[in-house]
């Protein structure tokens, strides 16, 4: 089975774009960056994978034709906020299977002209009838986490302060200014106890990577490139009243699969791109993966252990909170960040001697379960 490498990465700055900057436009610009970064010619690309949620039918084909890649196998991948990561996993599987040597993966989303007030489960899901905005789930998670572990509101808010401090150095981030703890604490409440700055924004954006087999790398005359050490995907299971609200069994199961595929374990990870759709989510998911001790995530954040320069830097890109969260693009943007980190191109946010990075996405909710989809992707130098 062929190993899979990341030969190129590119994205557009995440943010709020006007109506005439379409999904296709964003996706084409990100794809061009990734293709140029890999030095591939359009004719080298054998297939296109596109992750998106709100892009409508055959969005990937609409983009591919604008890239001059019409005629290729193109597939669209929807796993809510894990859509981009799922598209990468599908491409990784195809390369491992020996089907292709060079493929393009795009994650793209145009949200600001079609989503307002927060994202919701599918209307057919029971939770939607009850008015479960995503923020409410995480508000309940935060409340229970504080109750169980004595964590403070300030410790949870510190996740937003940290991630905004990181993306001051990320030219692709939606927000590039530091915020204070008081700004987070004083922001208007969205779902108690979480306020506006505990929530990732509704964003537009696109990110892309070129994935290659060893033969693909040789064809592009690339000597070395970061290697995908494994891609895990799990889905939620029914929870019972005897489990903890923040057990994160879905994260534990995703991590277990990632360790089994890659041969690595939690102690080997040098940096993390974590799905911090809400501040508390970064904390409980890091704990669920076994990267930090259960109940200590608040203290770890407050002490700077998860900051750039700390024991385990988390979200050097700014994460979803500050890089922005165009849902289908996020998983691919995470892999762009790991690629830049592992090729020493992360500038002022570079993690020294980073060798192995982990990226986590969680997409959607299903009533009565511990989640929709969870991906754990691992990339090594």
């Amino acid at each position: 089975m062929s190993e899979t490498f990341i030969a190129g990465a590119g994205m557009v700055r995440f943010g709020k774009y006007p109506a005439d900057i379409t999904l296709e436009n964003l996706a084409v610009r990100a794809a061009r960056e990734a293709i140029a970064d890999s030095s591939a010619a359009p004719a080298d690309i054998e297939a296109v994978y596109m992750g998106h949620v709100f892009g409508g039918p055959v969005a990937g084909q609409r983009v591919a034709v604008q890239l001059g890649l019409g005629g290729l196998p193109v597939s669209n991948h929807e796993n809510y906020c894990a859509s981009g990561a799922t598209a990468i996993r599908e491409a990784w599987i195809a390369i491992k299977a020996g089907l292709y040597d060079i493929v393009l993966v795009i994650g793209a989303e145009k949200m600001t002209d079609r989503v307002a007030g927060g994202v919701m489960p599918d209307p057919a899901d029971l939770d939607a009838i009850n008015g479960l905005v995503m923020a409410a789930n995480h508000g309940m998670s935060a409340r229970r986490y504080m109750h169980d572990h004595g964590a403070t509101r300030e410790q949870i808010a510190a996740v937003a302060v940290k991630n905004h401090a990181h993306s001051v150095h990320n030219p692709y981030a939606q927000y590039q200014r530091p915020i204070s703890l008081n700004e987070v604490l004083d922001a208007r409440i969205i779902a108690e106890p979480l306020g506006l700055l505990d929530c990732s924004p509704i964003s537009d954006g696109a990110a892309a990577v070129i994935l290659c087999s060893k033969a693909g790398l040789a064809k592009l005359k690339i000597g070395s490139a970061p290697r995908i050490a494994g891609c895990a995907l799990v889905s939620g299971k029914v929870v019972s009243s005897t489990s903890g609200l923040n057990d994160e069994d879905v994260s534990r199961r995703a991590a277990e699969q990632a360790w089994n595929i890659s041969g690595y374990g939690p102690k080997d990870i040098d940096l993390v791109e974590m799905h911090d759709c809400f501040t508390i989510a970064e904390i409980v998911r890091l704990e669920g993966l076994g990267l930090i001790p259960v109940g200590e995530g608040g203290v770890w954040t407050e002490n700077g252990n998860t900051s750039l320069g700390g024991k385990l830097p988390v979200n050097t890109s700014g994460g979803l909170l500050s890089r922005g969260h165009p849902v289908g693009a996020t998983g691919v943007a995470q892999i762009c960040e790991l690629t830049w980190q592992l090729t020493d191109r992360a500038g002022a946010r570079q993690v020294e001697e980073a060798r192995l990075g982990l990226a986590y996405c969680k997409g959607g909710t299903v009533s009565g379960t511990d989640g929709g989809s969870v991906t754990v992707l691992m990339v090594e130098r």
Partner: protein
Amino acid sequence: MTQIEKTPLRDDVISLEDGLLGIVCTACRRHSFPQRLLCLHCGSDQVENVSLPEQGRVCSWTVVRQAPEHLKTPYTLVTVDFEDGNRVLGAAEGNVRIGSPVTVELYPKTVDESGNSQWWYRFREVEEFNE
């Protein structure tokens, strides 16, 4: 004038007589919510319809203050744990806290095209359980 009827908003979730509806699996003995064709835990089709207990305890809660336009804020949401093993999300009335006892309450939520009232469930905080 036709009689205004009371109907459940979804009859796999509540009945006006029995409250919250669920299933128990005769293969693995586990309960799930709401009524489904197959056991959510093991996939068996050997399931029996049951109703959930009338009371549970709040695992966690939040007050939602921003939501898409069709939802009127603020509203309280709770996750409730039942003795049969089910954990159920719903709206809540009253001064709920972690560990609060709550009862299942049915109420008219919407009106359908024929003018019938469609009923749904929510939880109400109570001081202590009824024995």
